[in-house]
């Protein structure tokens, strides 16, 4: 995709997200004029951008929506829950249409008109006296817009008459502009830039590109083969528009004519629009949750930013890591003979390199608000569906996290928050009976501590019923009637595959895939999850994840003169190996006895193809997904943070290893794939068990 398109989609997504956030903020709070303005601005820019890209259906629909917002803004009408729902549906529709433009180009959606009608009906329902001003978007459109897509028109093509209904509404004068750039293009006279500049003085409502491209053999690289025709909306005088166009494009042909003549036909269709579509009285609409997205401040200042591909950043990070290694080599090369000036320079260099390293690492980080901002909408919809009242709070949204991690956390957090609404927060009447406020609170917060990121999902709902968890575990045959495990053990059951306490399976949560998936997802990111709960007071889930995916805590293991790494999260314990603990099935399949439990033994020397060691070494017990192995090694080289590197990128997958890392001295160490080791060991033990 070319960069202009990419820019369009990036911006479009931001605007759609912006509209959604503002709508949610509006719904829960006072109708602050500044917030309404923000909504209007998003819609307006979106309309303009999509028109400039030739997505006429999108721009037309947004235009209708904008007109509706305009009446909200001008008359300061309240955003009723019904209207908010409709507007949010419109945002969803825009998002879906936007996605379709990627593959299908400029296509319409039959739902557009119906939705606009509903929105206008809802608007008029609020204040019936303003019927006459029904925005034009409600008129049923004639589907001839297909001719107006960019690039396709034949030279005889003329903008179809249906343009008019995209163009009525705001009262700003409109013009039809014909623009033929100078026959020879130069760097200063970029027609596309001119179109972009027009956007700053008004609104391009529609845009046609007429190409006149000759056969390739006659093609001149610096010639312009094409012209544009625009419907342009501006408060400026035509003379100023002309001056603007001619200023930017010397030698161009420009024609401007007012569009009034076409506009002065009040659309009869809009008069006849909606009697049967009259909305149900608001009392009949489903109970809508009051969602307080109090993190969304309209008009908040945003940091200036540029978009950079992650590839570039990764290359930069690699280079900086190399500099760090070279630096440490330089530092260690100092000796008694090194003169004072060199020493000072090395020390200074060290400091700068360290800072450079930190800053480059920070580039990959994004504030968690990128992820958190998705949730207010979801909470609102979910709570409404379940008839619950939820106040959703967000805290620490400025905390920064690696982008890939943010994306990977989306599913687990969605699940936890849905669970909190579905199983945590009680229905309003139940809450009232218990003397709690009718509206429950779910709080999502993030903070950083000790080089790790913590994300907490806390609700003030009914808490986890440990007795029911126990009963379910008995039912599943995990414990017996007489077992009364500790609270922690019971909470652990929640994360086991096949466990779900939801009495009824709702369509939102508790469909088999449950907390075990959440736990697995979080662990695959090198993180962990824990839960605390108090009956009647609420539940708190705490996720602990590393700052970036690429960095993990590792434990260095040695055999002979070789150095391997295991992820620290997999390490349970380590102790001296004594042959007493050892037993072997059929002399071959070895097990060790760890406090009465037999765990398959894996000799690292054997695994990496080295001869047996002379002395007994250490045992490290590794665990993943509930299964353990005992790994026999020579020694432990200490704990360190390691950057995970791919072996496959330039080489191939290596069975038994998850990747490699670069040690402080520049050497490479391989990282053991714990789940693969465990799988092999357990497969072997099952085979032996079958023979026995």
């Amino acid at each position, binding site marked *: 995709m070319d960069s202009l398109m990419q820019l369009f989609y990036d911006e479009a997504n931001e605007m759609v997200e912006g509209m959604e956030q503002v709508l949610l903020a509006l719904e829960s709070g006072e109708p602050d004029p500044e917030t309404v303005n923000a909504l209007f601005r998003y819609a307006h820019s979106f309309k303009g951008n999509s028109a400039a890209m030739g997505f006429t259906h999108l721009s037309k629909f947004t235009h209708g929506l904008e007109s509706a917002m305009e009446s909200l803004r001008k008359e300061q009408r309240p955003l009723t829950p019904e209207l908010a729902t409709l507007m949010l549906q419109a945002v969803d529709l825009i998002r879906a249409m936007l996605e379709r433009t990627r593959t299908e180009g400029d296509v319409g959606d039959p739902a557009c008109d119906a939705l606009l009608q509903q929105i206008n009906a809802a608007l008029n329902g609020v204040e019936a006296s303003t019927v006459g001003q029904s925005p034009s978007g409600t008129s049923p459109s004639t589907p001839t817009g297909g001719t107006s897509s960019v690039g396709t028109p034949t030279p005889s093509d003329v903008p179809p008459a249906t343009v008019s209904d995209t163009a009525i509404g705001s009262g700003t004068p409109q013009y039809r502009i014909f623009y033929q750039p100078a026959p020879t293009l130069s760097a200063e006279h970029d027609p596309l830039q001119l179109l972009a500049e027009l956007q700053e003085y008004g609104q391009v409502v529609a845009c046609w590109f007429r190409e006149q491209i000759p056969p390739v053999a006659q093609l001149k690289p610096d010639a312009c083969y094409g012209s544009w025709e625009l419907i342009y909306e501006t408060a400026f005088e035509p003379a100023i528009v002309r001056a603007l166009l001619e200023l930017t494009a010397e030698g161009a042909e420009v024609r401007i004519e007012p569009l009034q003549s076409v506009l002065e036909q009040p659309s009869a269709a809009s008069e006849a629009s909606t009697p049967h579509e009259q909305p149900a009285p608001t009392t009949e609409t489903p109970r809508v949750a009051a969602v307080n997205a109090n993190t969304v401040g309209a008009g908040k200042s945003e940091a200036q930013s540029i978009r950079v591909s992650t590839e570039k950043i990764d290359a930069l*990070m*690699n*280079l900086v*890591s*190399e500099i760090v*290694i070279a630096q440490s080599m330089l530092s260690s090369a100092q000796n008694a003979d090194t003169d004072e000036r060199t020493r000072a320079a090395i020390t200074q260099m060290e400091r700068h390199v360290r800072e450079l390293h930190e800053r480059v690492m920070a580039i990959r980080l994004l504030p968690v608000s990128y992820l958190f901002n998705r949730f207010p909408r979801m909470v609102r919809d979910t709570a409404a569906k379940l008839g619950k009242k939820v106040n959703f709070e967000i805290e620490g949204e400025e905390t920064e996290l690696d982008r890939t991690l943010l994306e990977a956390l989306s599913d687990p957090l969605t699940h936890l928050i849905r669970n909190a609404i579905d199983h945590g927060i009680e229905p309003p009447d139940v809450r009232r009976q218990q003397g709690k406020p009718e509206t429950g609170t779910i709080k999502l917060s993030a903070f950083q501590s000790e080089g790790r990121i913590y994300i907490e999902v806390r609700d003030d709902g009914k808490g986890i019923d440990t007795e029911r968890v126990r009963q379910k575990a008995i039912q599943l045959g995990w414990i017996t009637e007489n077992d009364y495990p500790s609270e922690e053990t019971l909470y652990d059951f929640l994360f086991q595959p096949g466990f779900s306490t939801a009495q009824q399976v709702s369509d939102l949560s508790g469909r088999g895939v449950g907390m075990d998936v959440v736990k697995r997802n979080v662990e695959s990111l090198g993180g962990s999850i824990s839960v605390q709960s108090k009956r009647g007071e609420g539940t708190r889930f705490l996720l602990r994840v590393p700052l970036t995916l690429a960095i993990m805590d590792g434990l260095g293991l040695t055999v002979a003169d*070789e150095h391997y790494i295991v992820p620290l999260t997999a390490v349970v314990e380590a102790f001296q190996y004594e042959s007493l603990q050892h037993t072997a099935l059929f002399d071959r399949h070895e097990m060790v006895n760890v406090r009465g439990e037999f765990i398959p033994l894996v000799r690292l020397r054997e*695994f*990496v*193809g080295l001869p047996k060691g002379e002395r007994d070494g250490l045992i490290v017990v590794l665990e993943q997904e509930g299964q353990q192995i005992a790994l026999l090694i020579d020694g432990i080289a200490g704990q360190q943070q390691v950057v995970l*590197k*791919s*072996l496959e*990128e*330039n*080489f*191939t*997958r*290596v*069975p*038994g*290893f998850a990747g*490699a890392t*670069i040690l402080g001295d*520049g*050497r*490479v*160490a*391989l990282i053991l794939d714990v789940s693969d080791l465990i799988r092999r060991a357990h497969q072997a033990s099952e085979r032996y068990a079958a023979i026995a």
Partner: protein
Amino acid sequence: MTLTKPTTDTQQTTTTDVNAEKYLVFQIGNETYGVPLLQVQEIRTYTPATRVPNAPDYVLGVINLRGNIIAVIDARTRFGLPPLPDEESTVVVVAQVNDKTFGLRLDSVSDVMDIPIEQIQPTPPIASEATQRFLNGVVQVGERVIILLNLREIFDIEALSQLAA
């Protein structure tokens, strides 16, 4: 540590032929070999590689190339010759085939030469069947006979991946 590609003015021009291609030339045992300079990314001094368990013997292991992990192949072992210990002159030629970067450990590199493409002849059966596929042909430049190597076959990532599967 790293030797950048030599500039053109240091090249010998043994022929006026326009259809010449630059080759990196080196000695293994008694023979002189060459690889297209275009495939060579850089030449580095050899630093011990980290052994990769269960890899074929000609894979010495993996090294760190500016933050990327690349494999190093020992040319002598690959050709069935006994490996030589590390010397001052031991180098790794970093090359790229099929989007993958790898290193070829050599006893030393000697030269960059222009090789006239038309004069390349098919490989005579001087090598065994097994090593025949590593060769792209031979060419005589002045007094020297240069055996041209096929880096893709020497690295042979497909075969390595199959071993790993």
